[in-house]
């Protein structure tokens, strides 16, 4: 057991570095890096890691950090980086290219409020900007989850059936800067878990082709269809690699979503990231009072795990979705997805709650307000803002 007291940032930097080192007998590892609070410690960790076959390139912007990863991935290397908030926004154009080029780049995204006003605390609005960019997205709830999901991300991304980039998201400070004692992966485990990175469409002087030239509508249609098919394969491939992960690391990690006390529940709360850990406690409290409340943690946001969600919510009366993000004009983004996913289950009411938008602590008292509102509500309405000082 390699138990250590580390932050979420340390966990992400550690797993990415081990994954990069694990590719030392293939085309190595390359990392374009640029700092931004609160992810800076991740790229600092990577920058001081003694890769035996790797290059860390400290560039001038997030846009270029992803650019370096794209160039290196097209040339066959294992690539990864990290960013946050406005840094992700600045990187946006190349984030899109990474997916459209089918490059298995792994990026740690520390969820920080987009500015202005400038605010470094947790909010998922940054990575959720890229919900339609063909990146696989995981939302982690603890430091252990970050360490393990980052490792798993490489395996899923590089699977020849997938070949898509992966964002491993975590809440700013609550995970990124808070220390927990966790079991850190070892190099020996990473070497066993990760096969050499193989990019089938890497640059090859013997067979010259142009990556990313023009395409007409029919070819573009095929390209998007193939993205869709790859996304569709993610849930099954993810489950396979979760089993592999357990075999190598000796522990389970959460898959697409996880349910808690939902079997007989008449009200289900849904959340992602660290809010879901608070929900567990609140559910236990309400259960002690005889109230049939359950919860679901959504970890895989893209592709959205609709099938499993419908199974879990098939007979429930009321669903309350807690969102630590805000899409102007529509409300919480997870709520929109849940509503769309449950469409047709006519007896199920889905109500959205905006909790911790801009980084406020979502304490049990606030979640209790959600449960109380959901309990007395007979029909869904506009999203309810929770935690506003009157």
């Amino acid at each position, binding site marked *: 057991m390699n138990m250590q007291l580390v932050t979420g940032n340390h966990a992400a930097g550690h797993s990415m570095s081990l994954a990069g080192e694990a590719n030392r007998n293939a*085309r*190595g590892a*390359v990392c*374009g890096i640029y700092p931004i609070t609160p992810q800076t410690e991740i790229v600092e960790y990577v920058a001081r890691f003694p890769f035996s*076959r*790797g*290059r860390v*390139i*400290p*560039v*001038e*912007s997030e*846009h*270029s*950090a992803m*650019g*370096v*990863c*794209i*160039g*290196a*991935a*097209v*040339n*066959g*290397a294992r*690539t990864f980086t990290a960013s946050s908030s406005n840094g992700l926004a600045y990187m946006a*154009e*190349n984030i899109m*290219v990474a997916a459209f080029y089918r490059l298995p780049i792994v990026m740690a995204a520390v969820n920080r409020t987009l500015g202005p006003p400038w605010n470094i605390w947790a909010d998922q609005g940054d990575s959720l900007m890229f919900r339609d960019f063909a990146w696989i997205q995981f939302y982690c709830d603890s430091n252990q989850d970050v360490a393990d999901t980052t490792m798993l991300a490489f395996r899923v991304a590089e699977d020849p059936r997938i070949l898509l980039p992966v964002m491993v998201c975590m809440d700013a400070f609550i995970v990124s800067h808070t220390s927990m004692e966790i079991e850190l992966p070892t190099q020996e485990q990473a070497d066993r878990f990760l096969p050499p990175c193989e990019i089938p469409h890497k*640059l*090859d*002087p013997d067979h*010259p*082709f*142009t*990556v*990313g*030239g*023009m*395409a*007409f509508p029919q*070819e573009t249609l095929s390209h998007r269809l193939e993205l869709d098919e790859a996304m569709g394969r993610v849930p099954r491939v993810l489950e396979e690699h979760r089993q592999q992960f357990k075999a190598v690391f000796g522990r389970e990690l959460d898959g697409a979503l996880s349910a808690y006390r939902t079997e007989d529940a008449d009200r289900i709360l849904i959340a992602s990231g660290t809010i879901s850990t608070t929900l567990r406690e609140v559910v236990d409290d309400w259960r002690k009072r005889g109230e049939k409340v359950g919860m679901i943690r959504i970890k895989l946001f893209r592709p959205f795990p609709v099938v499993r969600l419908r199974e879990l919510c098939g007979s429930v009366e009321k669903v309350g979705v807690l969102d630590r993000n805000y899409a102007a004009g529509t409300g919480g983004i997870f709520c929109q997805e849940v509503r769309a996913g449950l469409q047709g289950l006519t007896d199920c009411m889905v109500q959205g709650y905006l909790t911790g938008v801009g980084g406020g602590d979502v304490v049990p008292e606030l979640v209790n307000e959600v449960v109380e509102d959901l309990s007395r509500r007979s029909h869904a309405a506009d999203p309810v803002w929770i935690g506003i000082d009157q």
Partner: protein
Amino acid sequence: MNAANPQFPDSSSQADCLLRPGNTNCGGCGMSNGLTMLGRALENENYSLVIPACCGIVTAGAFPTTSYNVPVLASTFASSPAFASGVAAVNEMNQEADGKLRHVICWAGDGGTYDIGIATLSAAAERNENLIYICYDNEIYGNTGGQRSSATPAAAKTTTTPGGKGERKKQIIEIMAAHHIPYAATLSIAHPDDFQDKIRKALKIKGFRFFLIHSPCPTGWKTEPAETIELVSLAVRSGIFPLYEVFDGRDYRINAKPDGTNPARYFEKQKRFSGGEINLDRVERWVLARMARLQKLAEIQ
């Protein structure tokens, strides 16, 4: 060619031809000439191109065909030096493993170089990335139909400076030399031997190497396609586009001395400089003053 059954050029028979027949570039395109000369200079070299948004990527043609006989990676507009830094990093690691030298070359227009990409370019130069960056400078956003760029010379009319541009052209070689990169040089398609010599020279240098090609765009400049080579020749002879190289940002060498040709001969062949209230006398004075300064720099040893 039979339209119903198109015959694409056989790449194996075009082994030394970087730009294959069948591309759709305009007649008299300076960039096409530049690519042909680049391909000759790099015969038998192992290299790939990184091309941002510009005519150079349109040159590749539409998927699944490509006009280039080497691997090409299309980059976003501002990103070619960043993409190429990633390619170069893997090339270096591969060379450590198998001893084979592989080059990566950015092929970008003036928009991607002087304007949207200059931060990325400056950063890659400052990091002294092991790559070659070539800017084919047609002094406009040619791909979008001829708008001004910061490489557009004073007095030139573009679709966004219909009365002629008021500001002067940015001096990109001076900017790059100020990064202390090991090699920066200008290239002219009217001087193919000099072109080839400098590319070959650059292949032997490690680190960031920058080239600027004077690249007429007959469509945007309103010039005769057949006069492209004549134009760039006049530009060298009159001192408008001096052929020179800078080593380590410090040592200047002029490769072709101007022969006293009147700069007016260059301007009068281009309709983009015609009419209006353009003060060509002033433009000529700037040109000659810059050449004089360059000669002084070349004398400092």
